[in-house]
């Protein structure tokens, strides 16, 4: 059933795009959260006005 190959490939490609895309989002979210914590810690400690 060679005509079905396109659907199978599309299904697996989309699965990987969504999984790796979300993994990348988690990296970005984690980095942003750390930056915000660092900034908030500095403000909290009174080193920034």
């Amino acid at each position: 059933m060679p005509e079905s190959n396109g659907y199978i490939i599309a299904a697996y490609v989309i699965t990987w795009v969504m999984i790796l895309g979300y993994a990348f989002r988690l990296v970005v979210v984690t980095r942003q959260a750390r930056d915000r914590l660092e900034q908030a810690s500095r403000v909290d400690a009174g080193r920034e006005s």
Partner: protein
Amino acid sequence: MGHALPLTADGQSMPATGQRSIEWLGVVALLALVGAQLLGILTSAPDRDMGHLQKIMYVHVPAAWNAFLAFFVVAVASLAYLWKGQERHDLLAASAAEVGALFTALTLILGSIWGRPTWGVWWTWDPRLTSTAVLLLIFVGYLALRSFVEDSDRRAQWSAAVGILGALNVPIVYMSVRWWRTIHQLQSSPSTVDPEYVTGLRANGIAVLLVLTYFILKRYRAACVERLAEQLAERAALEGRGRYA
């Protein structure tokens, strides 16, 4: 802010070793997913009716199972928040809801790709498809609600209510193929599929479960750090007002 500091304690108590364990889980999950997909693709014979299209089952069905599992986590964590009022339960529910929405969207997209060559349509207002779309919309609404409400207590309480109500939709989605007339096949599980496909289905189910666990833990950890930063910013703002008022 009735319980601002317990989360701070939680956030600070997460050691670097916990972070490393989560990253290792991510590597294991990735390798498991590659291995399980290769196992499913390379070892299963074409189905009598669907031919090689059957191989979409190895991504579609585990995505659906794990989306349901994520919403179960949302329900349990939301109930725990309403009972004990600890913010870590609210953050866990939010993390699981985001990952659950991802896997529900993936389930719908893969189902559509599978439906086109087998049913002849990308989409139909079938009870299983429609109830799954409603489930996705509820949790997209849940995430939108969290971004609109600034007060953390109110956000957590409203989210818990929506999370529990949304998770109640899961049994409806699961049973929809038995309760109503539908073109969707009955629930796929190791007990209902051909024995030849059971190993591949189980392997992919476990691999996606590892991915789901990694995603939820990683998102939860980031959410704890975000909340800690929010608390520090709120405290600094309050003290600043006190000083200059």
